[in-house]
């Protein structure tokens, strides 16, 4: 039974692993930290899995556990380096300037998103995952109206970071 449970879980996780990678992409900025957070989210998912009921989609359930781990439960391990300091990033952005190439633009955008705080990142994550405001409000525990207002503020904040 336990073996079967484990087998099912690992199969599901392998299929949906990109969700965790995407959470890690927002909340970490180096290889070790990425793997560390990935590991912690996997443990939390596995611990919660026996209580997972089929009535929720596995991926939706993963969003919750993944974000909760990244925002609240995860303690950065000693070997991972803390997030880049704000000024360093800002300097790099202005030095690189806006380039027409798409790759360059994406790089700058990711850097800008990294400067948001944990809660803002969570909203950006759900937005990028095409979640509607009702789902965002449920995942975060805030009202739908507040989720909408916050999202607009985040967009403005990103614009300010990109065009200081």
């Amino acid at each position, binding site marked *: 039974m336990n073996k079967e449970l*484990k087998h099912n879980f690992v199969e599901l996780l*392998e299929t949906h692993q990109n969700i965790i990678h995407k959470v890690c992409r927002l909340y970490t900025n180096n290889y070790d930290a990425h793997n560390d957070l990935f590991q912690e989210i996997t443990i939390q998912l596995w611990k919660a899995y026996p209580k997972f009921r089929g009535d929720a989609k596995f991926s939706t359930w993963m969003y919750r556990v993944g974000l*909760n781990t990244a925002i609240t439960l995860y303690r950065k391990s000693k070997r991972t380096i803390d997030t880049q300091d704000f000024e360093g990033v800002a300097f790099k952005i202005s030095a690189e300037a806006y380039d027409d190439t798409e790759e360059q633009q994406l790089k700058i955008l990711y850097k800008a998103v990294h400067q948001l705080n944990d809660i803002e990142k969570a909203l950006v994550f759900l937005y990028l995952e095409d979640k509607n405001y009702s789902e965002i409000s449920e995942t975060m525990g805030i009202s739908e109206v507040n989720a909408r207002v916050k999202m607009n503020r985040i967009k403005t904040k990103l614009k300010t970071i990109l065009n200081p």
Partner: protein
Amino acid sequence: MDELDILKKDWHKEKPEHKKLSTQDIYPMLHKKSSSIVKTLFYISIAELVFWIIISIIPYFTSNSYKKQLDSVYTNDYVFGALTAFSYAIILLFIYLLFKSHKAISVTDNAKKLMESIIKTRKVIKYYVIYNLAMAFISMVLGTYFAIVHNPELSNTIAHFSDKQKLIAFAIVTGFTAVFVFVIWLFYKLLYGLLLKRLNRNYKELKKLEV
């Protein structure tokens, strides 16, 4: 076009720098130890319980004379007996409350609820610490008082003190105890402050959205 919409186009692509894990890569991950703050908090609360229980029983086992003295007090004095029973009841109550609040922490709750359950658990530990510090303070002051009253030599010395000297002696004992309690309190502040700094910040951010 919106910045986030530009990002959205790239978002779902798998990134080459993070290779796709196979099931063989995932299996060992399930057996690794978690480093979540809930786990740390759990260990701290256990350590807390054990620490204060040990502190209260150490003198009983290390000093024979103290043991004798205590035994005679317990058999003769109902107040002390009742106090001890009360303190054990409090410990049991805290064990129950801790267990309950730890149980209530669920990673599948929404972000705000999860943070609230963790903060609640931290509060239970906090009250336990406050209770113990208060008890430590009271028993140190009372202990000194009883030592003076029950020890003829000491009370004799004190009797020769002038009022000013008595006051100074009292101030020294109280001051020393207060510093002791304050240092322990500071230690806790630092411990929880460091552990829950990020959680508190994020919780504040979420609460801010409500006003």
